[in-house]
């Protein structure tokens, strides 16, 4: 990954007024990636939407880390189920067209 795709974790914390400890805990729980280069933590840009969402859960809704972990897990499961449903719908549509059902 190039450094241009990374955002300094401290910069994120300053911008969103969150403690570094919070994103460090998210990293420890495996909810986000942090890349360390020369002892400085960086967040991949692709992780930003997820990190922003988790930050909102923590600070807007006052949900603790355990709650965030549970929610993140359920949201991922929900997303994967939605994708499965979507795939099955597409498949069904294809069969209906091919076989004139």
């Amino acid at each position, binding site marked *: 990954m190039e450094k241009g795709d990374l955002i300094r974790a401290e910069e994120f914390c300053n911008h969103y007024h969150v403690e570094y400890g919070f994103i460090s805990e998210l990293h420890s729980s495996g909810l986000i990636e942090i890349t360390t280069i020369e002892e400085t933590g960086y967040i991949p840009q692709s992780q930003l939407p997820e990190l922003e969402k988790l930050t909102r*859960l923590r600070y807007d809704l006052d949900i603790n880390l355990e709650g965030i972990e549970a929610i993140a897990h359920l949201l991922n499961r929900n997303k994967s189920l939605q994708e499965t449903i979507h795939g099955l719908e597409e498949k069904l549509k294809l069969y209906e067209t091919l076989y004139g059902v």
Partner: protein
Amino acid sequence: MAFIDYYSVLGVSKTATTEDIKKAYRKLARQYHPDLNPNDKQAHSRFQQINEANEVLSDPEKRKKYDQYGKDWQHAEQFEKAGQSSTGGFGQGGQGFGGQAWSGDFSGAMNEEGFSEFFESLFGRTGSRSKRNVKFRGEDYNAELHLNLVDAFTTHQQTLTVNGKNIRITIPAGVQNGQVIRLKGHGGPGVNGGQNGDLYITFIILDHAHFKRMGDDLYTTVELDLYTALLGGEVTLDTLSGKIKLKVQPETQSGSKTRLKDKGFPMYKKENEKGDLYVTFNVKIPTHLTEQQKELFRELQKLSS
């Protein structure tokens, strides 16, 4: 524009304490927060209602004004003026709720900060959150972009108009039906200097008359005349990337399939990689046979039996 009963929105009584309101708000916000209900417009709108109710009831001054004017909120300004110019005008007990039940109606338009017209009328545009000066992130917008299959086949640019602003976006080839992309900062404006929300675009890929897409693979049907199906030959096939010649094996059965590797749909953000094209052969039985043709088929029938 109807009166909105903020107490019933939060499910609290009119005598609820600040702590009760805070608890009720937090409980409902956790239930309806857009991050917890992705792509659920109803939850999103309910969340706005809850926010607005909390905005009023958690602020002692706003709550007082709201309680004081109740259903006469439309005349709040006049009452205030009257109250200032004469003693004994509208007291606390004069225009309160008096135990009446009003139904909340949020069906009216919301302003760009997500507040109803009712809220705006009572507290003004600047009335929102100015006291606490808390920064709020703007609302996320969701939009659908309809593309036909041919458009989605190639990387191209499109200009979208969002809130009067033109945004030029590049749509990579291979975008999937239902795929969502995020355009950061193109959602609703933030409040009190909060950052703008994001714009989420969901791509809807329209059906094509001759090709069906499943993932990165394409499916199509080719009609074969009986003689080519029996003896083999070549047919020209129109694909999304141009015409190709397709070899037909002798004795090809109707309904049989052939796979054309790398002739399917481009893979999203994978340059020069494509799925496969599956062709189903549909053998057409000739009609309006001449007497001579019929005779020859009878000969064939005799040979086969």
